C-alpha cells in the first residue's frame, strides 16, 4: 500500500510551490511509474531508426525493456524484450538486424513481429502445450504510429492517441511539414546521457526562459552575443542565434509567448529575436517546398515554436531539429536521448547545419546541455536540505490567460508552464487524468 492517498498527494502541490518530496521521494517515483507512465502515451522513437526489414533497436522505457522492430512485411512492432520461456532478454544489442529473434538460453525463437516461431525439441512438452499456448513475445497493450513517431501505452485504457495529444498533434504536423517530402528521418544515431536528478526537473527546464541568461552565461562572448550554435557556411539557413545582443534579462525574452494544453502539454513559441532564414541554400529549400506544397508552402515553412513539450517525457526542439526523450531511471537519475531529425527533401546543407548544431549544443560535450545538467543535478542534491520543504514557482502567477478547454497562454519568464505540468501530475497521480 502506498503511503500516498489523494489528500497527501494534493498537499504536495500548492498554487505557487511544490513540496520537495515531489522530486526526491522514491515512493513518489514508483507511484509515477504506475499512475503517469502507465497511463499516458510514451514515445519509443521514430520508425526511420529501423528502416529495413529485420532492423531492431532496444531501449528501456519507464523501466520496461522493449524492442522496436521492423518485420519482413515492413510493419513496425514494439515488443517487450523478454523471452516467454524463462524471461531472458531476447535482444541484448542496442540495435541490429536479425532475420528472427532467438533466445540465447534454450533457443526459443520468435519472428520479428513477435510471433512465436518454435522451440527446440518440442516433443518433451505435453501435446498441444506449445502449439495451443500463447508464447508470442508480449506487447504493450497499445501501439500507434503518428507521422513516423512510434508510441506505446502500457495500459489498455488510455485515451486515443489523437485525444491524448489534443492540439499538440498540430505541433507534430508543423514539424514534419517543414520537410518538402512531408517526412522526417532519424538517420544520424542519437546522443544518450544521464544526470543525477529527477525527470521532472528537466521537464520544467524545457519551459524555462528565466534560466538561459544565467545558466548559459558561459556561452556568450565578451560582446554578450551567444556563440553561433550553427550555420551552413555563407548562408543563413540553419543558423541559430539564441541571444541577440545581451545575455542579460531583457524585454525581448518577456514578449515570448508560452502556453499549454490539457494533460500537461506545454510549448514555447518561436523566439522573437530568432530571425527568419535567408540565403542561397534557403532559396533552394523554398523552391522545393513550393514544388511540394504549392500555395501551402509558405505556411508550412513557418517555424511556429521553439519547442513543444509532451507530458510526461518528450519534446520536439525546432531550432536544433531534434526530439528529446526523458527516460526516468530512478527518483534521482534520468536518462536523456537526443535524436536529430532530417527534413527529407530539404537541401543537404541544411541537414549538415542541423547536425552540427546538435553536436555543438546537445552532445554530452555540448556547450549548452552541460550547464543545464549541472544545474539540475545541483537542484536534486540541494533539495535534500532540511529547513525548507518548498520549491517555488510563483513567477507571474495569476497572469495566465486560461480558456475552457484547459489551454492557456502567458509570456516570457513566467513559471506558468511548470505550474501547468504540476497540475497535470496531480491529476494523473490522483487518478483523474
Amino acid at each position: 500500500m502506498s503511503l500516498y492517498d489523494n489528500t497527501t498527494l494534493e498537499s504536495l502541490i500548492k498554487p505557487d510551490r511544490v513540496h520537495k518530496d515531489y522530486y526526491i521521494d522514491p515512493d513518489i517515483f514508483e507511484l509515477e511509474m504506475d499512475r503517469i507512465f502507465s497511463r499516458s502515451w510514451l514515445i519509443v522513437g521514430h520508425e526511420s531508426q529501423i528502416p529495413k526489414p529485420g532492423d531492431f533497436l532496444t531501449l528501456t522505457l519507464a523501466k520496461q525493456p522493449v524492442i522496436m522492430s521492423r518485420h519482413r512485411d515492413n510493419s513496425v512492432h514494439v515488443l517487450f524484450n523478454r523471452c516467454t520461456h524463462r524471461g531472458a532478454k531476447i535482444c541484448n544489442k542496442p540495435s541490429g538486424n536479425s532475420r528472427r529473434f532467438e533466445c540465447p538460453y534454450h533457443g526459443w525463437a520468435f519472428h520479428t513481429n513477435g510471433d512465436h516461431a518454435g522451440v527446440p525439441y518440442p516433443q518433451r512438452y505435453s501435446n498441444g502445450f506449445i502449439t495451443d499456448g500463447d508464447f508470442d513475445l508480449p506487447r504493450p497493450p497499445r501501439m500507434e504510429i503518428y507521422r513516423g513517431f512510434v508510441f506505446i501505452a502500457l495500459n489498455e485504457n488510455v485515451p486515443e492517441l489523437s485525444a491524448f495529444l489534443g492540439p499538440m498533434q498540430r505541433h507534430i504536423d508543423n514539424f514534419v511539414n517543414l520537410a518538402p517530402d512531408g517526412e522526417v528521418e532519424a538517420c544520424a544515431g542519437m546522443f544518450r546521457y544521464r544526470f543525477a536528478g529527477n525527470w521532472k526537473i528537466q521537464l520544467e527546464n524545457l519551459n524555462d526562459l528565466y534560466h538561459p541568461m544565467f545558466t548559459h552565461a558561459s556561452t556568450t562572448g565578451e560582446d554578450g552575443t551567444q556563440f553561433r550554435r550553427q550555420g551552413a557556411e555563407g548562408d543563413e539557413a540553419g543558423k541559430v542565434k539564441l541571444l541577440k545582443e545581451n545575455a542579460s534579462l531583457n524585454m525581448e525574452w518577456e514578449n515570448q509567448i508560452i502556453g499549454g494544453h490539457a494533460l500537461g502539454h506545454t510549448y514555447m513559441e518561436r523566439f522573437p529575436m530568432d530571425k527568419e532564414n535567408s540565403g542561397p541554400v534557403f532559396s533552394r529549400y523554398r523552391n522545393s517546398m513550393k514544388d511540394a506544397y504549392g500555395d501551402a508552402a509558405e505556411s508550412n515553412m513557418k517555424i511556429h515554436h521553439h519547442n513543444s513539450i509532451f507530458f510526461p517525457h518528450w519534446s520536439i526542439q525546432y531550432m536544433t531539429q531534434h526530439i528529446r526523450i526523458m527516460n526516468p531511471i530512478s527518483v534521482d537519475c534520468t536518462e536523456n536521448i537526443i535524436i536529430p531529425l532530417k527534413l527529407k527533401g530539404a537541401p543537404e546543407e541544411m541537414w549538415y547545419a542541423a547536425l552540427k548544431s546538435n553536436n555543438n549544443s546537445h552532445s554530452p560535450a555540448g556547450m549548452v546541455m552541460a550547464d543545464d545538467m549541472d544545474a539540475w543535478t545541483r537542484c536534486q542534491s540541494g533539495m535534500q536540505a532540511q529547513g525548507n520543504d518548498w520549491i517555488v514557482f510563483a513567477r507571474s502567477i495569476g497572469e495566465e490567460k486560461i480558456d475552457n478547454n484547459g489551454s492557456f497562454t502567458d509570456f516570457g519568464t513566467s513559471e506558468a508552464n511548470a505550474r501547468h505540468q504540476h497540475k497535470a501530475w496531480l491529476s494523473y497521480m490522483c487518478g483523474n487524468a
Partner: protein
Amino acid sequence: MQSAIEKFLYFEARLLDERRFEDWYNLFAEDGYYWVPGAPDQTDPYNSVSIFFDDKALLKTRIMRLRHPKLHSQEPQSRTCHYVSNVEIDNNRGNGSEIFVHSVQLMTEFRLDKQTSFSGRCYHHLRTQKSSYEIISKRVNLINCDGIFETLTIPF
C-alpha cells in the same frame, strides 16, 4: 622521427592536463579540426552525431567558454591526466611533410569526488613545421562513443 612525434603527443597531452587550452588550440593548423565521433567506425562526420566536431573557429569558442568565470559545469574544475601510448607512425600514408600517427589514449578525470576514465584510439594527421608539428586533424575513437555519458567539458 618516432621520438620527435612521441614528444609532440606527450606535449599535447600535457597542455590539456595543465589547462593550457589556448596553447593546445594553437597546435591546430588554420584548417585543422578536432573530431570525436559518436558512432563506432564512423566514416564521415556528417553521417552520424559527433561528441566533438570542431573546426578551429568552434574550438576557439569552446576554449573561451572554458575560461569563462560563469562556466558552472566546471565548478569545481576537472583535473585530468591524459596518458598517451602505443605510438605508431603510419608508413603507408603521408609524405615528406605530412605524417599520420596512431596512438592510444587514456584520460582520467576527477571532479566532484568522482573519478572517470575514457579511453580510445587516436589518429593524428600532422604537418611538419620548422621545429615541430601542427595538427591538421585529431580524431579520438572512444570505446564508449555511443554509450551513456555524463557531461564532458575537457577535450580528450
